[in-house]
Protein backbone atom coordinates (compact mmCIF):
# COMPACT_ATOMS: atom_id res chain seq x y z
CA UNK A 1 0.00 0.00 0.00
CA UNK A 2 1.56 3.21 -1.12
CA UNK A 3 0.90 6.62 0.30
CA UNK A 4 -0.34 8.14 -2.98
CA UNK A 5 -3.29 5.72 -3.33
CA UNK A 6 -4.40 6.53 0.21
CA UNK A 7 -4.30 10.25 -0.30
CA UNK A 8 -6.36 10.20 -3.51
CA UNK A 9 -8.43 6.98 -3.82
CA UNK A 10 -10.86 8.37 -6.41
CA UNK A 11 -8.18 9.22 -8.90
CA UNK A 12 -8.04 5.76 -10.44
CA UNK A 13 -11.83 5.00 -10.28
CA UNK A 14 -14.49 5.90 -12.90
CA UNK A 15 -16.73 8.84 -12.17
CA UNK A 16 -20.04 8.20 -10.35
CA UNK A 17 -22.79 7.16 -12.83
CA UNK A 18 -25.59 9.64 -13.42
CA UNK A 19 -29.13 9.00 -14.60
CA UNK A 20 -29.97 10.69 -17.85
CA UNK A 21 -33.32 11.41 -19.46
CA UNK A 22 -34.70 8.75 -21.73
CA UNK A 23 -38.07 8.57 -23.45
CA UNK A 24 -40.67 6.07 -22.12
CA UNK A 25 -41.23 3.35 -24.71
CA UNK A 26 -44.51 3.69 -26.57
CA UNK A 27 -45.51 0.04 -25.98
CA UNK A 28 -45.30 0.62 -22.22
CA UNK A 29 -47.68 3.58 -22.47
CA UNK A 30 -50.11 1.54 -24.55
CA UNK A 31 -49.90 -1.34 -22.07
CA UNK A 32 -50.53 1.01 -19.14
CA UNK A 33 -53.51 2.52 -20.89
CA UNK A 34 -54.97 -0.91 -21.63
CA UNK A 35 -54.46 -2.01 -18.03
CA UNK A 36 -56.17 1.10 -16.70
CA UNK A 37 -59.02 0.59 -19.16
CA UNK A 38 -59.44 -3.03 -18.08
CA UNK A 39 -59.25 -1.99 -14.42
CA UNK A 40 -62.04 0.53 -14.77
CA UNK A 41 -64.29 -1.93 -16.58
CA UNK A 42 -63.62 -4.51 -13.86
CA UNK A 43 -64.41 -1.94 -11.18
CA UNK A 44 -67.59 -0.83 -12.91
CA UNK A 45 -68.90 -4.37 -13.31
CA UNK A 46 -68.04 -5.81 -9.93
CA UNK A 47 -67.59 -3.12 -7.31
CA UNK A 48 -71.16 -1.87 -6.98
CA UNK A 49 -69.34 1.47 -6.91
CA UNK A 50 -68.36 0.85 -3.26
CA UNK A 51 -72.00 0.80 -2.13
CA UNK A 52 -72.26 -0.52 1.44
CA UNK A 53 -75.21 -2.74 0.46
CA UNK A 54 -73.27 -4.65 -2.18
CA UNK A 55 -71.39 -7.75 -1.05
CA UNK A 56 -70.13 -10.46 -3.37
CA UNK A 57 -71.45 -12.45 -5.21
CA UNK A 58 -73.72 -9.51 -6.07
CA UNK A 59 -72.37 -6.96 -8.51
CA UNK A 60 -74.60 -3.93 -7.98
CA UNK A 61 -77.22 -2.44 -5.68
CA UNK A 62 -79.85 -3.11 -8.36
CA UNK A 63 -78.97 -6.79 -8.34
CA UNK A 64 -79.28 -6.98 -4.53
CA UNK A 65 -82.68 -5.32 -4.81
CA UNK A 66 -83.89 -7.95 -7.28
CA UNK A 67 -83.49 -10.70 -4.67
CA UNK A 68 -85.47 -8.89 -1.99
CA UNK A 69 -88.59 -10.29 -0.43
CA UNK A 70 -91.52 -8.89 -2.35
CA UNK A 71 -95.22 -9.52 -2.19
CA UNK A 72 -97.73 -8.27 -4.72
CA UNK A 73 -100.49 -6.31 -3.01
CA UNK A 74 -100.98 -6.07 0.77
CA UNK A 75 -98.30 -7.96 2.70
CA UNK A 76 -99.46 -9.29 6.08
CA UNK A 77 -95.88 -10.18 7.08
CA UNK A 78 -94.83 -6.55 6.82
CA UNK A 79 -98.15 -5.63 8.43
CA UNK A 80 -97.34 -7.81 11.40
CA UNK A 81 -93.96 -6.15 11.89
CA UNK A 82 -95.54 -2.69 11.67
CA UNK A 83 -98.45 -3.68 13.91
CA UNK A 84 -96.07 -4.88 16.58
CA UNK A 85 -94.18 -1.62 16.32
CA UNK A 86 -97.09 0.83 16.42
CA UNK A 87 -100.30 -0.84 17.59
CA UNK A 88 -99.42 -3.70 19.91
CA UNK A 89 -98.51 -1.38 22.79
CA UNK A 90 -102.24 -0.90 23.47
CA UNK A 91 -103.97 -3.60 21.41
CA UNK A 92 -101.46 -6.27 22.46
CA UNK A 93 -99.62 -8.59 20.10
CA UNK A 94 -102.46 -11.11 20.26
CA UNK A 95 -105.08 -8.49 19.38
CA UNK A 96 -106.91 -9.02 22.66
CA UNK A 97 -106.61 -5.37 23.69
CA UNK A 98 -105.56 -4.25 27.16
CA UNK A 99 -107.81 -3.35 30.05
CA UNK A 100 -108.04 0.40 30.41
CA UNK A 101 -106.15 1.00 27.16
CA UNK A 102 -107.77 -0.47 24.09
CA UNK A 103 -110.61 -2.77 23.01
CA UNK A 104 -109.86 -6.14 21.37
CA UNK A 105 -109.31 -6.48 17.62
CA UNK A 106 -109.54 -10.26 17.55
CA UNK A 107 -113.07 -11.23 16.58
CA UNK A 108 -114.20 -7.59 16.58
CA UNK A 109 -117.15 -6.85 14.30
CA UNK A 110 -115.59 -3.48 13.42
CA UNK A 111 -112.46 -5.20 12.11
CA UNK A 112 -114.23 -8.06 10.33
CA UNK A 113 -116.79 -5.82 8.62
CA UNK A 114 -117.36 -6.53 4.93
CA UNK A 115 -116.34 -2.98 3.93
CA UNK A 116 -113.33 -1.09 5.23
CA UNK A 117 -114.68 2.46 4.86
CA UNK A 118 -115.01 2.75 8.66
CA UNK A 119 -111.97 0.72 9.67
CA UNK A 120 -109.39 2.76 7.74
CA UNK A 121 -110.56 6.01 9.35
CA UNK A 122 -109.93 4.80 12.89
CA UNK A 123 -106.10 4.77 12.88
CA UNK A 124 -106.00 7.84 10.61
CA UNK A 125 -108.28 10.06 12.70
CA UNK A 126 -108.31 8.40 16.09
CA UNK A 127 -111.54 7.57 17.89
CA UNK A 128 -113.40 8.84 20.93
CA UNK A 129 -116.61 7.83 22.66
CA UNK A 130 -118.11 4.62 23.94
CA UNK A 131 -117.76 1.77 21.46
CA UNK A 132 -119.30 -1.66 21.68
CA UNK A 133 -117.05 -4.55 20.64
CA UNK A 134 -118.12 -8.20 20.84
CA UNK A 135 -121.14 -7.12 22.87
CA UNK A 136 -119.09 -5.35 25.53
CA UNK A 137 -118.98 -1.55 25.88
CA UNK A 138 -115.55 0.13 25.97
CA UNK A 139 -114.99 3.76 26.85
CA UNK A 140 -111.60 5.36 27.32
CA UNK A 141 -111.31 8.99 28.51
CA UNK A 142 -108.67 10.03 25.97
CA UNK A 143 -109.93 7.79 23.20
CA UNK A 144 -107.62 6.40 20.58
CA UNK A 145 -104.73 8.51 19.40
CA UNK A 146 -104.59 9.08 15.60
CA UNK A 147 -101.52 6.86 15.27
CA UNK A 148 -101.50 7.09 11.47
CA UNK A 149 -102.33 10.80 11.37
CA UNK A 150 -99.65 11.58 8.80
CA UNK A 151 -98.11 9.70 5.94
CA UNK A 152 -94.72 10.43 7.51
CA UNK A 153 -95.72 8.48 10.63
CA UNK A 154 -97.15 5.45 8.82
CA UNK A 155 -97.01 5.40 5.00
CA UNK A 156 -100.04 4.21 3.02
CA UNK A 157 -98.34 0.95 2.15
CA UNK A 158 -97.64 0.13 5.80
CA UNK A 159 -101.17 1.09 6.86
CA UNK A 160 -102.74 -1.18 4.24
CA UNK A 161 -100.39 -3.97 5.37
CA UNK A 162 -101.27 -3.41 9.04
CA UNK A 163 -105.01 -3.41 8.41
CA UNK A 164 -104.71 -6.49 6.20
CA UNK A 165 -102.80 -8.25 8.96
CA UNK A 166 -105.37 -7.21 11.57
CA UNK A 167 -108.21 -8.45 9.38
CA UNK A 168 -106.55 -11.83 8.83
CA UNK A 169 -104.82 -12.60 12.13
CA UNK A 170 -106.14 -14.17 15.34
CA UNK A 171 -108.99 -15.94 13.58
CA UNK A 172 -110.26 -12.79 11.85
CA UNK A 173 -111.51 -13.44 8.35
CA UNK A 174 -111.62 -10.15 6.48
CA UNK A 175 -110.60 -9.37 2.94
CA UNK A 176 -107.27 -7.56 2.43
CA UNK A 177 -107.22 -3.75 2.58
CA UNK A 178 -105.71 -2.39 -0.60
CA UNK A 179 -103.36 0.51 -1.02
CA UNK A 180 -105.94 2.35 -3.16
CA UNK A 181 -108.61 2.16 -0.43
CA UNK A 182 -106.21 3.58 2.16
CA UNK A 183 -105.02 6.29 -0.18
CA UNK A 184 -108.55 7.39 -1.11
CA UNK A 185 -109.72 7.73 2.49
CA UNK A 186 -106.54 9.48 3.61
CA UNK A 187 -106.96 12.02 0.82
CA UNK A 188 -110.59 12.49 1.81
CA UNK A 189 -109.88 13.26 5.49
CA UNK A 190 -106.56 15.03 4.95
CA UNK A 191 -107.77 18.35 6.35
CA UNK A 192 -109.49 17.03 9.45
CA UNK A 193 -107.62 17.39 12.74
CA UNK A 194 -110.21 16.24 15.31
CA UNK A 195 -110.79 12.71 16.51
CA UNK A 196 -113.54 10.68 14.96
CA UNK A 197 -116.49 10.01 17.30
CA UNK A 198 -118.22 6.67 17.57
CA UNK A 199 -121.47 8.39 16.60
CA UNK A 200 -119.93 9.60 13.33
CA UNK A 201 -118.43 6.20 12.75
CA UNK A 202 -121.83 4.54 12.98
CA UNK A 203 -123.33 7.03 10.54
CA UNK A 204 -120.69 6.26 7.91
CA UNK A 205 -121.57 3.66 5.30
CA UNK A 206 -119.61 0.45 5.74
CA UNK A 207 -118.73 0.23 2.07
CA UNK A 208 -118.33 3.02 -0.36
Amino acid at each position, binding site marked *: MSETVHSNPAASEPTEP*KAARRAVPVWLLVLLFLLIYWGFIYFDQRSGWCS*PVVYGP*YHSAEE*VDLYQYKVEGPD*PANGRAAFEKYCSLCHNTDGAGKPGQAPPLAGSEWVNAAGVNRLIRIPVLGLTGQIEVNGKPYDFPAGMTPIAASREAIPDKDLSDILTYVRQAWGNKGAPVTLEQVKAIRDEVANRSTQLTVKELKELPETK
Partner: protein
Amino acid sequence: MNYGPLVFLAAFFALATSWVGFVLGPQLQVGQFQPTNTVPTRADYPVARPGLARQGLDVYRANGCAYCHSQQVGQTGTVCDVSLGEAGTNQAALTAVILKLRPDWSETQAKEALGSLPKAVLQSVSLAQAQAAVKELAVGGAKASVWVVPVGPDIGRAWGKRRSVAEDFLYDYPVMPGSLRVGPDLANVGARLPDANWAFRHLYAAQIDAKGSVMPRYPYLFEQRKIDHSPSPEALTSLQQFAPPSGYEVVPTEEARALVAYLFSLRADAPLYVAPLTVASAPATDTNAAAGTTPTNAPAK
Protein backbone atom coordinates in the same frame (compact mmCIF):
# COMPACT_ATOMS: atom_id res chain seq x y z
CA MET B 1 -29.77 11.32 -5.78
CA ASN B 2 -30.17 13.97 -8.41
CA TYR B 3 -33.94 13.21 -8.52
CA GLY B 4 -34.56 13.54 -4.79
CA PRO B 5 -37.88 15.45 -4.94
CA LEU B 6 -39.22 13.08 -7.61
CA VAL B 7 -38.36 9.99 -5.54
CA PHE B 8 -39.95 11.62 -2.51
CA LEU B 9 -43.12 12.43 -4.41
CA ALA B 10 -43.31 8.93 -5.88
CA ALA B 11 -42.92 7.33 -2.46
CA PHE B 12 -45.45 9.73 -0.96
CA PHE B 13 -47.90 9.01 -3.74
CA ALA B 14 -47.52 5.24 -3.33
CA LEU B 15 -48.06 5.38 0.44
CA ALA B 16 -50.92 7.86 0.17
CA THR B 17 -52.69 5.68 -2.39
CA SER B 18 -52.48 2.59 -0.21
CA TRP B 19 -53.63 4.58 2.82
CA VAL B 20 -56.66 5.82 0.88
CA GLY B 21 -57.36 2.32 -0.38
CA PHE B 22 -56.86 0.34 2.80
CA VAL B 23 -57.78 2.82 5.56
CA LEU B 24 -59.86 5.72 4.32
CA GLY B 25 -61.91 3.79 1.75
CA PRO B 26 -63.12 1.03 4.12
CA GLN B 27 -63.75 3.63 6.83
CA LEU B 28 -65.98 5.63 4.51
CA GLN B 29 -67.65 2.45 3.31
CA VAL B 30 -68.45 0.68 6.58
CA GLY B 31 -67.24 3.02 9.34
CA GLN B 32 -70.65 4.56 9.94
CA PHE B 33 -72.64 1.32 10.02
CA GLN B 34 -75.74 1.35 12.20
CA PRO B 35 -77.74 -1.64 13.45
CA THR B 36 -80.14 -2.81 10.79
CA ASN B 37 -83.29 -4.93 10.52
CA THR B 38 -83.97 -8.44 9.38
CA VAL B 39 -86.07 -8.79 6.25
CA PRO B 40 -89.05 -9.05 6.23
CA THR B 41 -89.71 -9.58 9.97
CA ARG B 42 -87.97 -6.30 10.90
CA ALA B 43 -86.35 -7.61 14.03
CA ASP B 44 -83.36 -5.64 15.29
CA TYR B 45 -80.07 -6.91 13.94
CA PRO B 46 -77.48 -7.55 15.20
CA VAL B 47 -78.33 -8.14 18.83
CA ALA B 48 -75.51 -7.44 21.27
CA ARG B 49 -74.11 -10.57 22.87
CA PRO B 50 -75.39 -11.19 26.38
CA GLY B 51 -72.93 -10.46 29.22
CA LEU B 52 -71.39 -13.90 29.70
CA ALA B 53 -71.03 -14.37 25.94
CA ARG B 54 -69.32 -10.99 25.66
CA GLN B 55 -66.81 -12.15 28.29
CA GLY B 56 -66.42 -15.34 26.29
CA LEU B 57 -65.23 -13.29 23.34
CA ASP B 58 -62.22 -12.28 25.42
CA VAL B 59 -61.55 -15.92 26.33
CA TYR B 60 -61.83 -16.82 22.64
CA ARG B 61 -59.30 -14.12 21.88
CA ALA B 62 -56.94 -14.98 24.74
CA ASN B 63 -56.78 -18.65 23.75
CA GLY B 64 -56.08 -17.84 20.12
CA CYS B 65 -59.09 -19.71 18.77
CA ALA B 66 -59.10 -17.33 15.80
CA TYR B 67 -55.71 -18.69 14.65
CA CYS B 68 -57.34 -21.95 13.57
CA HIS B 69 -61.04 -21.10 13.27
CA SER B 70 -62.46 -18.53 10.87
CA GLN B 71 -65.77 -16.76 11.41
CA GLN B 72 -66.65 -15.84 7.88
CA VAL B 73 -68.88 -17.76 5.53
CA GLY B 74 -68.36 -17.28 1.82
CA GLN B 75 -70.99 -17.32 -0.87
CA THR B 76 -70.31 -17.79 -4.54
CA GLY B 77 -73.80 -17.34 -5.92
CA THR B 78 -77.52 -17.15 -5.31
CA VAL B 79 -80.08 -19.47 -6.83
CA CYS B 80 -83.84 -19.66 -6.51
CA ASP B 81 -86.36 -22.36 -5.75
CA VAL B 82 -90.01 -22.16 -6.71
CA SER B 83 -92.26 -23.34 -3.93
CA LEU B 84 -95.85 -24.17 -4.75
CA GLY B 85 -98.07 -23.15 -1.85
CA GLU B 86 -101.68 -23.48 -2.92
CA ALA B 87 -102.90 -25.51 -5.86
CA GLY B 88 -106.06 -23.59 -6.62
CA THR B 89 -109.08 -25.25 -8.21
CA ASN B 90 -108.07 -26.22 -11.73
CA GLN B 91 -105.86 -29.24 -11.10
CA ALA B 92 -105.71 -30.34 -14.72
CA ALA B 93 -104.46 -26.98 -15.97
CA LEU B 94 -101.96 -26.77 -13.13
CA THR B 95 -100.62 -30.26 -13.86
CA ALA B 96 -100.05 -29.19 -17.45
CA VAL B 97 -98.13 -26.11 -16.28
CA ILE B 98 -96.00 -28.21 -13.91
CA LEU B 99 -95.22 -30.71 -16.65
CA LYS B 100 -94.16 -27.87 -18.90
CA LEU B 101 -91.86 -26.53 -16.18
CA ARG B 102 -90.56 -29.99 -15.30
CA PRO B 103 -90.25 -32.01 -18.53
CA ASP B 104 -88.37 -34.65 -16.52
CA TRP B 105 -91.44 -35.38 -14.36
CA SER B 106 -94.10 -37.88 -15.28
CA GLU B 107 -97.75 -37.00 -14.89
CA THR B 108 -97.96 -39.22 -11.78
CA GLN B 109 -95.06 -37.32 -10.21
CA ALA B 110 -96.74 -34.00 -10.95
CA LYS B 111 -99.96 -35.19 -9.33
CA GLU B 112 -98.05 -36.51 -6.34
CA ALA B 113 -96.41 -33.09 -5.99
CA LEU B 114 -99.84 -31.48 -5.93
CA GLY B 115 -100.87 -33.87 -3.20
CA SER B 116 -98.02 -32.89 -0.87
CA LEU B 117 -98.06 -29.09 -0.77
CA PRO B 118 -96.09 -26.97 -0.10
CA LYS B 119 -93.65 -28.47 -2.55
CA ALA B 120 -90.61 -27.17 -4.40
CA VAL B 121 -91.45 -27.56 -8.06
CA LEU B 122 -88.23 -26.05 -9.34
CA GLN B 123 -84.88 -26.00 -7.59
CA SER B 124 -81.60 -24.16 -8.23
CA VAL B 125 -82.80 -22.01 -11.09
CA SER B 126 -81.99 -18.38 -11.84
CA LEU B 127 -84.11 -15.57 -10.48
CA ALA B 128 -85.56 -14.77 -13.91
CA GLN B 129 -86.51 -18.41 -14.49
CA ALA B 130 -88.10 -18.62 -11.04
CA GLN B 131 -90.13 -15.45 -11.51
CA ALA B 132 -91.31 -16.65 -14.91
CA ALA B 133 -92.33 -19.99 -13.38
CA VAL B 134 -94.28 -18.25 -10.60
CA LYS B 135 -96.19 -16.28 -13.23
CA GLU B 136 -96.95 -19.41 -15.24
CA LEU B 137 -98.16 -21.20 -12.11
CA ALA B 138 -100.34 -18.19 -11.27
CA VAL B 139 -101.94 -18.52 -14.70
CA GLY B 140 -102.66 -22.13 -13.77
CA GLY B 141 -104.51 -20.83 -10.71
CA ALA B 142 -101.86 -21.72 -8.13
CA LYS B 143 -100.01 -19.62 -5.58
CA ALA B 144 -96.25 -20.07 -5.79
CA SER B 145 -93.37 -18.13 -4.32
CA VAL B 146 -89.69 -17.62 -5.08
CA TRP B 147 -87.24 -18.83 -2.46
CA VAL B 148 -83.83 -17.17 -2.46
CA VAL B 149 -81.12 -19.71 -1.68
CA PRO B 150 -77.47 -18.63 -1.31
CA VAL B 151 -74.97 -21.24 -2.47
CA GLY B 152 -71.25 -21.83 -2.16
CA PRO B 153 -68.75 -24.34 -0.78
CA ASP B 154 -69.06 -23.03 2.80
CA ILE B 155 -72.85 -23.14 2.68
CA GLY B 156 -72.57 -26.66 1.24
CA ARG B 157 -70.58 -27.66 4.33
CA ALA B 158 -73.50 -26.41 6.46
CA TRP B 159 -71.30 -23.68 7.94
CA GLY B 160 -73.99 -21.08 7.34
CA LYS B 161 -77.05 -20.19 5.32
CA ARG B 162 -75.72 -17.03 3.75
CA ARG B 163 -72.45 -15.15 3.47
CA SER B 164 -71.08 -13.17 6.41
CA VAL B 165 -71.51 -9.43 6.12
CA ALA B 166 -70.05 -6.51 8.06
CA GLU B 167 -73.33 -6.11 9.97
CA ASP B 168 -72.76 -9.47 11.67
CA PHE B 169 -69.71 -8.11 13.50
CA LEU B 170 -71.11 -4.72 14.47
CA TYR B 171 -70.99 -5.26 18.23
CA ASP B 172 -67.77 -7.31 18.35
CA TYR B 173 -64.51 -5.79 19.41
CA PRO B 174 -62.07 -6.91 18.29
CA VAL B 175 -63.56 -8.52 15.22
CA MET B 176 -61.99 -11.96 14.76
CA PRO B 177 -62.93 -13.18 11.30
CA GLY B 178 -59.81 -15.36 11.21
CA SER B 179 -57.84 -16.30 8.14
CA LEU B 180 -56.95 -19.97 8.61
CA ARG B 181 -59.24 -22.96 8.64
CA VAL B 182 -57.37 -25.65 10.51
CA GLY B 183 -60.72 -26.28 12.18
CA PRO B 184 -64.20 -25.61 10.83
CA ASP B 185 -65.68 -22.15 10.43
CA LEU B 186 -67.49 -20.96 13.56
CA ALA B 187 -69.65 -18.14 12.17
CA ASN B 188 -72.80 -20.19 12.85
CA VAL B 189 -71.50 -22.66 15.41
CA GLY B 190 -74.23 -21.65 17.86
CA ALA B 191 -76.81 -23.06 15.47
CA ARG B 192 -75.20 -26.50 15.24
CA LEU B 193 -73.62 -27.22 18.65
CA PRO B 194 -75.56 -30.14 20.10
CA ASP B 195 -75.48 -29.09 23.77
CA ALA B 196 -73.33 -27.34 26.35
CA ASN B 197 -71.86 -30.56 27.71
CA TRP B 198 -70.66 -31.50 24.23
CA ALA B 199 -69.02 -28.09 23.89
CA PHE B 200 -67.30 -28.39 27.27
CA ARG B 201 -66.08 -31.89 26.43
CA HIS B 202 -64.78 -30.62 23.09
CA LEU B 203 -62.76 -27.90 24.80
CA TYR B 204 -61.47 -30.31 27.44
CA ALA B 205 -60.35 -32.88 24.85
CA ALA B 206 -61.58 -32.56 21.27
CA GLN B 207 -60.35 -36.09 20.50
CA ILE B 208 -63.20 -37.64 22.50
CA ASP B 209 -65.93 -36.77 20.00
CA ALA B 210 -63.82 -35.91 16.95
CA LYS B 211 -61.37 -38.77 16.45
CA GLY B 212 -58.07 -37.62 15.04
CA SER B 213 -58.73 -33.95 15.73
CA VAL B 214 -55.61 -31.79 15.94
CA MET B 215 -57.29 -29.31 18.24
CA PRO B 216 -55.20 -28.78 21.36
CA ARG B 217 -56.68 -29.55 24.76
CA TYR B 218 -57.67 -26.74 27.05
CA PRO B 219 -57.62 -28.49 30.44
CA TYR B 220 -56.75 -25.25 32.22
CA LEU B 221 -60.25 -23.97 31.46
CA PHE B 222 -61.48 -26.74 33.76
CA GLU B 223 -60.92 -27.72 37.32
CA GLN B 224 -60.24 -31.29 38.38
CA ARG B 225 -61.38 -31.62 41.95
CA LYS B 226 -62.16 -34.24 44.54
CA ILE B 227 -65.81 -35.22 44.71
CA ASP B 228 -67.20 -33.92 47.96
CA HIS B 229 -70.26 -35.88 49.16
CA SER B 230 -72.02 -36.04 45.74
CA PRO B 231 -70.82 -35.22 42.19
CA SER B 232 -71.54 -31.75 40.83
CA PRO B 233 -74.32 -31.55 38.24
CA GLU B 234 -71.92 -29.49 36.13
CA ALA B 235 -69.26 -32.19 35.99
CA LEU B 236 -68.26 -33.31 32.49
CA THR B 237 -69.53 -36.71 31.44
CA SER B 238 -68.31 -39.36 28.95
CA LEU B 239 -64.67 -38.26 29.11
CA GLN B 240 -63.49 -41.78 28.15
CA GLN B 241 -59.67 -42.01 28.19
CA PHE B 242 -59.45 -38.46 29.59
CA ALA B 243 -61.64 -39.30 32.56
CA PRO B 244 -60.24 -38.15 35.91
CA PRO B 245 -59.18 -40.76 38.49
CA SER B 246 -61.91 -42.32 40.54
CA GLY B 247 -63.22 -39.98 43.21
CA TYR B 248 -62.44 -36.90 41.13
CA GLU B 249 -64.55 -34.84 38.73
CA VAL B 250 -63.87 -32.24 36.03
CA VAL B 251 -65.95 -29.05 36.22
CA PRO B 252 -65.82 -26.03 33.89
CA THR B 253 -64.42 -22.79 35.26
CA GLU B 254 -66.08 -19.41 34.76
CA GLU B 255 -63.84 -18.91 31.71
CA ALA B 256 -65.02 -22.11 30.06
CA ARG B 257 -68.63 -21.20 30.75
CA ALA B 258 -68.10 -17.77 29.20
CA LEU B 259 -66.41 -19.28 26.15
CA VAL B 260 -69.22 -21.77 25.60
CA ALA B 261 -71.81 -18.99 26.03
CA TYR B 262 -69.92 -17.07 23.35
CA LEU B 263 -69.85 -20.08 21.02
CA PHE B 264 -73.61 -20.50 21.43
CA SER B 265 -74.08 -16.82 20.65
CA LEU B 266 -72.26 -17.20 17.31
CA ARG B 267 -75.07 -17.23 14.83
CA ALA B 268 -75.16 -15.13 11.69
CA ASP B 269 -77.94 -16.50 9.56
CA ALA B 270 -80.65 -13.85 9.83
CA PRO B 271 -81.96 -12.70 6.44
CA LEU B 272 -80.81 -9.14 5.78
CA TYR B 273 -81.31 -6.69 2.95
CA VAL B 274 -77.63 -6.98 2.01
CA ALA B 275 -77.71 -10.79 2.21
CA PRO B 276 -81.11 -11.91 0.93
CA LEU B 277 -82.28 -15.34 2.02
CA THR B 278 -85.72 -16.88 2.38
CA VAL B 279 -86.21 -18.53 5.75
CA ALA B 280 -89.94 -18.79 6.28
CA SER B 281 -93.16 -17.93 4.56
CA ALA B 282 -95.13 -14.86 5.55
CA PRO B 283 -97.10 -15.68 8.69
CA ALA B 284 -100.42 -14.60 7.22
CA THR B 285 -102.89 -16.11 9.62
CA ASP B 286 -101.08 -18.20 12.18
CA THR B 287 -99.60 -15.60 14.45
CA ASN B 288 -98.89 -17.94 17.31
CA ALA B 289 -95.92 -19.49 15.55
CA ALA B 290 -92.56 -18.07 16.57
CA ALA B 291 -91.78 -15.06 14.39
CA GLY B 292 -89.59 -16.03 11.49
CA THR B 293 -87.62 -18.73 13.25
CA THR B 294 -89.09 -21.97 11.99
CA PRO B 295 -89.55 -22.58 8.28
CA THR B 296 -93.25 -23.39 8.12
CA ASN B 297 -93.40 -24.37 4.50
CA ALA B 298 -89.83 -24.99 3.54
CA PRO B 299 -89.55 -26.59 0.13
CA ALA B 300 -89.19 -30.34 0.44
CA LYS B 301 -85.64 -31.37 -0.33
